């Protein structure tokens, strides 16, 4: 019992003792493990090509015509099957409408992407009809010789739409588009293929054109 009392006294004495304190002390400079420059420049995704620039580029690709001339040519004899009117695309392309106090669109949306698609298809189809005419000298999009290999011809289109040589593309883009071209040509040439106003080769190039004119790099900068 005496031992128990002694032990208890020791415990009680321990609890009532002075608190343990951590005094602030200099720890010196932390040792550098490596240097990494901090880039404080604001970063953003590539911005959308302004609709004015898109429209001007589109007109240029069509051969440097005025909007209403392009509209007439794009509609051709098909009416609104391929191309409606610029007025119909005005808002969808992201133009601001100052009359309604609508600001310009700075991000894509489903309607805009659909408009890009429809306009792109119209451009490519009309360009195929025009440029592949026998003896056509004044080609607007497919400005290459049929004797060139696919890579050379594709490079012409790549530069026209995306503004740089296909060889500098971040992926094996030329190979992928070649596969696309060949598969479309094969499909159109196969027995029982749906009737088309395009030859298999023309359909192949139209498909390549669709791919480039709808490419994100075409719409961003």
């Amino acid at each position, binding site marked *: 019992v005496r031992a128990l009392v002694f032990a208890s006294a020791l415990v009680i004495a321990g609890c009532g003792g002075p608190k343990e304190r951590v005094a602030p002390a200099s720890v010196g400079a932390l040792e550098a493990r490596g240097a990494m420059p901090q880039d404080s420049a604001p970063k*953003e995704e590539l911005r959308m090509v302004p609709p004015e620039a898109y429209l001007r580029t589109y007109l*240029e690709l069509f051969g440097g015509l005025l909007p209403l001339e392009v509209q007439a040519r794009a509609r051709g004899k098909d009416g609104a099957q391929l191309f409606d009117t610029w007025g119909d695309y*005005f808002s969808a392309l992201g133009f601001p409408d100052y009359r309604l106090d609508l600001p310009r669109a700075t991000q894509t949306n489903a309607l805009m992407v659909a408009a890009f698609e429809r306009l792109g298809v119209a451009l490519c189809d009309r360009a195929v009809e025009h440029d592949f005419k026998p003896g056509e000298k004044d080609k607007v999009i497919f400005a290459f010789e049929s004797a060139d290999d696919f890579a050379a011809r594709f490079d012409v289109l790549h530069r026209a739409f995306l503004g740089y040589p296909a060889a500098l593309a971040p*992926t094996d883009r030329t190979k992928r588009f070649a596969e696309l071209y060949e598969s479309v040509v094969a499909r159109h040439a196969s027995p029982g293929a749906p009737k088309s106003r395009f030859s298999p080769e023309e359909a192949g190039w139209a498909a390549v054109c669709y791919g480039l004119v709808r490419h994100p790099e075409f719409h961003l900068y």
Partner: protein
Amino acid sequence: LVIASASSDARASRTREDYRHFRAASIDLLGRMPTPAELAAFERPGFDADAWLDQHLGGAAYAQRLTRIYMDLLRLEPGVAVQFAPDPTALYRQQIMGPDGKLLHVYFRARQRRARDETDGEFCFTPEETGLHVEARQPPRPGETAIPVSKALLDKYTVVVKPWWLYRDYLQLAPSKRYKAGWDDPDPAYQPVDTLLKEPDGSATVEVRLCREEAQASETGHIYATGRVRPAPGTLPPFGRKRPLPLDTPYARDHKGESIRCQSKLGLESSIDCGCGTGLEHCLPIDSTVLGGGAFMFPNHVPLGLGAPIDDARQQAARWYPFWWSQEATHFFEYLFSGDRDFREVLTAHYSVINGPLAQFYRTIQPSNCCDKEASFGMQSEIEPLFDPKRVPIELFPHDVASWKVIDDRGDRASGLLTMPIFLEKFASGRARGAALYNAFLCKSFVADDVQLEPSTEPNLMVRPGCSTCHAALEPLAAYFARVEAGSLVYLPSPQFPVANDKCKKKADGRLPGGCENFYDPAFSDVHAGTLRGAYGSPQHADGGPALAGKDLTALPDFASCAVQRVAASFFGRPITHDDAALVQSLTEVFVSKGYRMRPLVRALMKSSAYRDANNVRSGGS
């Protein structure tokens, strides 16, 4: 441009980033992506990026690029509901049956005073004479059948004229150059609607018939007063009229017989010898009896400029001048930027750029938009117009829609964008104008305090709790525009309309004397003087007008840095943040040191690594 200098094998040395940068610069300065030929030039040895930049910093696409920044901010196009056809200028058209049973058109003005009591203030024929109840601004009544008007009446009450919209030489005694018939080279963009060119039977219109009073061409008329007294309540209007006979205004009673300018509201409302002028050039034709009637074809949208419209539509006549107001602002900006002028002129310039329709507007239409209520303050016609009609070049005809001329000096009250109709109409109140300037040119916004608004009778918003946060700054800004009448673009001169006017002091019943409340605000008036509406925020600003606003705002340090932020944000395609502070400061120094000119600013901006690198988060792709 921060593009690797061209070596002997430039094409091989170009990186994808170089191409991206060149494409971005092309989009910003040429307004489109580079063509294959331009890419080839870029790849050629010796390509000089600086020379390329300098070459394109002065081009039309560059000016349009900068214009877009401010048009996006201010949205300077009239709303779809905006119509502008003041009564003295709107020439409506009614179809009646002629003596031979053929239908014919007769033009007339609403509220035209006539000596004949039956038609005073109305169409020049009575319903009994035509079988039709004709009313301006109202569609034809259904079910009415026209009856032939006798030749004697037709000759008595109407005349025929060769009007300006049909004849290039309408100012000549015997005009002969009719639209596409003798006048063979009209501006392609000048397109009267088909209905203005044809008679009811489909034949070509070679002259128009209109009520005799409207056809008068004198520049001055006389105050007409009938001495009529107000009819007793319940008395039906005489002669089967729908409306009572017009009564004399107090001004007409007091000044009967005095000479007045026909180009004024008074000329229409208080005289019988004022018409639409030579060739009807003071009036705008409308092909029906309603304001929604047509007059001209013009585009709804011109995102690439007037030379490349994306549509062409039959438009309401009353939108003709508002359309050109917007184009005036666009041309003003493009002139400012293409000439690399001091950007402060955007708010201070005396010059502007106008075409034929705008010349007609400033020369004859706007003067007719004043004055009626102002007359009792001694203003029968505009005294200090925002655009002096005498400064409009006579060689600009209403048909010259594609001829734009710089007017070096619009007059003493002119001040850049601030006195243009499109700005004053788009932002129709003093507060709206002040807020637009605060935001667009000082990069500031009004943000309300997080306070509980208590009911208050305090009229002074600069001190009313909860309101003062914004209105302490807004009311003085609004006061700059206190002298520009809302809706009429008329400037109220200080001699006739002093800020504190003892003739408009409060009466014992708390009201202001007759006519004063149109211009003076009872809430800020007392027994000593009436206070001009909108001026209480700063009488000094009210007296200085928009010109003082331009001077004051451009002198603020925020003006330059805001312009830099606006341009940089547009070229970077993202908002400017605190992280851009150093860049904004250095660009502002360039901008100010070069005399507030945009070209050095844009050059410095495009040569900065920030322009090259800001939008460099890669997207993948196949």
